[in-house]
């Protein structure tokens, strides 16, 4: 594994671990999701650049568009949560708790 591949792989996995081991805020979990998307964007771009496969350059662009959609949906959920439960804390989302 080249150093660049190791870096982007570890960036993705660290973001995923940050999302899994979230603490208080929903927004910090969403930011970890954004870090994963960023690592994926850099990975796709580097794929196209390192292989001199210029046709693959469309993949990171479209991925960025869809990641913007996902981020806006997540933020809309955050706003809805904050206005319903009063806080953006994960402890407030306890309706399914037994």
């Amino acid at each position: 594994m080249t150093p660049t591949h190791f870096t982007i792989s570890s960036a993705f996995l660290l973001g995923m671990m940050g999302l899994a081991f979230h603490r208080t805020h929903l927004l910090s979990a969403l930011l970890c999701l954004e870090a994963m998307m960023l690592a994926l964007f850099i990975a796709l771009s580097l794929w196209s650049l390192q292989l001199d496969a210029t046709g693959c350059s469309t993949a990171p662009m479209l991925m960025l568009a869809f990641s913007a959609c996902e981020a806006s949906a997540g933020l809309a959920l955050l706003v809805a949560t904050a206005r319903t439960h009063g806080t953006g804390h994960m402890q407030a989302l306890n309706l399914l708790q037994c």
Partner: protein
Amino acid sequence: MAHIMLTLLIGMVLGVISVASNPSPYFAALGLVLVAGVGCVVLMGHGGSFLSLVLFLIYLGGMLVVFAYCAALAAEPYPEAWGEWSVLGSVLGYLLLVVGAGSWFWGGWYEGMWVPVDELIEFSVVAADSGGVALMYSLGGGLLVVSAWVLLLTLLVVLELTRGLARGALRAV
């Protein structure tokens, strides 16, 4: 050049650790700005200047600005930065993990591996990544129309999620 790339890649990993350790969202957004900036310079070092520009404009200038405004929802009197022990424990744990995994690969890395092969190996009027993105408008036109439709759909999804008061299950007020 190899030293520059080493510094940038280390900066990227440290930035993602600063986001993944889950401090208060203000500081996590700062860490994400650092990762995006350093990632842009990594892409530029590999010759992808257009993709780096797109990342800066759309990701930092569009998405992260929206995240920064939503950080107002996470206002608390004592925001936890990376000096707080609960966050620092996560930082040290992730650092240990990355250093451990890196030490497993370290033996096989030689000097030439850090630097990409030059992208400008043949003369061309159009830069590689710009020319590739132009393909999105010609052969990839169908997917462009689909993604435009998806963006419109997302707008409607967001408006429906934040409507509240009479329709939808998420908003009680």
